[in-house]
């Protein structure tokens, strides 16, 4: 979106998922698992084989399929120039 060019983040809500009854009654385990995978040392150090956008070139559908393996669904996404923030179910 053009808004990304001037640095304004852009929100998309996944109505298909949020329309479902996301019942948290069975939630019992708050503590999270946290994984951080770096593919190079910084945004400026992307290797020549990589897209200039790096991981940000990857489609949301590809990430959603990966997240299926984790048992998470995408509720909404904020896209910004440097980072896309996915809010997930569970």
């Amino acid at each position, binding site marked *: 979106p053009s*808004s990304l060019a001037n*640095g304004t*983040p*852009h*929100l*998309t*809500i*996944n*109505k298909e998922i*949020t329309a479902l*009854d*996301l*019942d*948290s*009654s069975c*939630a*019992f*385990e*708050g*503590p*999270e*698992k*946290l*994984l*951080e*995978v*770096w*593919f*190079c*040392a*910084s945004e*400026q*150090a992307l*290797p020549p*084989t990589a897209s200039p*956008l*790096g*991981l*940000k070139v*990857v489609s949301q559908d590809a*990430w959603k399929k*990966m*997240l299926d*393996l*984790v*048992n*998470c669904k995408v*509720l909404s*996404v*904020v896209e*910004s*120039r*440097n*980072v896309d*923030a*996915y*809010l*997930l*179910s*569970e």
Partner: protein
Amino acid sequence: SSMFVFPHKLVLKTCGTTTLLCGLPRMLEIAALEAGFPYVKADLPQDVPAAATPHRVFYSRKNYLYPDQQRGPHRSWRDEVRYLDKMFMGGSAYMIGKMNGEHWYLYITGPGTQLTPPATPEEDRLETKMHSFQIPEKLNNVTDSGDETLEILMTDLEETNARQFYLDDASAIAKDNARRAYDLRKDAVAHLGVIPECNGSDPSISGNTLVDGKDDARFDVFAQTSVEHSALNSDEDEPLSFSQELSTEGHTLGTVVTENSGLADLYPTSKYPDARIDSYLFTPCGYSANGVVPVPDDVESTHYWTVHVTPEPQCSYASFETNVPTRATGRSTVDVVQHVLGIFKPGRFSVTLFEAKGDNDSTSAKWDKAMERIKGYRRVDRIVHDLEGYELVFRYFERE
């Protein structure tokens, strides 16, 4: 749960019985085949055909409350380490904190991580070499300086504070807000004969998308909807009943909670005009929020914060994590910690500050000292780890 995708790294934080590590092989495959990062054949689960070679990998978690109910490789730290060791060569696993109390686990690989090669014939090894790309020394040595992550893990939340993350409480606040908006409009029409416009931004809505909204945009939409309902019934003394959809919609109520709890003031839009918060309130309780914080005058630099809350008294827990660098905000780490603690008022919490070693060691030492005294709490543990290129400081506090 949350995921943050940067051009060069991915952060995935998931709770409950999610199987986070099961997504890792596919993550490496996506990085290789879709984003074009150098890849090799590796001995990974799920038979992924190619896996990008990461620069570094960090995996961490607090000790689980109910480990027996976890699934896949997450039933024990030993299983998780075994899973990771099968994928990466030379990883290091740590347990930090008291074994018989609050502790935290960390698995880390050093710069230039190597994937575990498959036990395959020579011809496949040759193929592996063909796909490999040697990262030039000067790129591989780019410093991680400036990278810092602060994580606060809180348990035993004060019950009153935890209540604000329940749908019933948030819905009541939302209704009050709508009523106030209605009253304002009614007064304006009665006294001035005009219809006041909503304050704040003027978001446009297209399909499922809310475009260019500021942090209070959804609330404006929500308040405006209520006003419009009322306008159709201006002869009535009371506003129309608050619509069922608006009083239960997770994103709408998430925004109400974000504003009401004080999380919206953490990195306020008055100081960070392009900051954006995306939040969701679950039914009947539970809350998640992601914030993106573009640093003014530095379009190259956008950071994140994230909060997840499980407010039920028997397992109350909240986590806060941010990589917004203190140097960019002018706000000290201890200020951020105090702000977050004020929202949840936990009985116990741990703080981990993971910081790339750089030129700011004297500043870090000053903040380190300030972190020793958190009002209302007694510092029980302070453990420092010197990890390849990073310093990790873990602290554990209990209410006095």
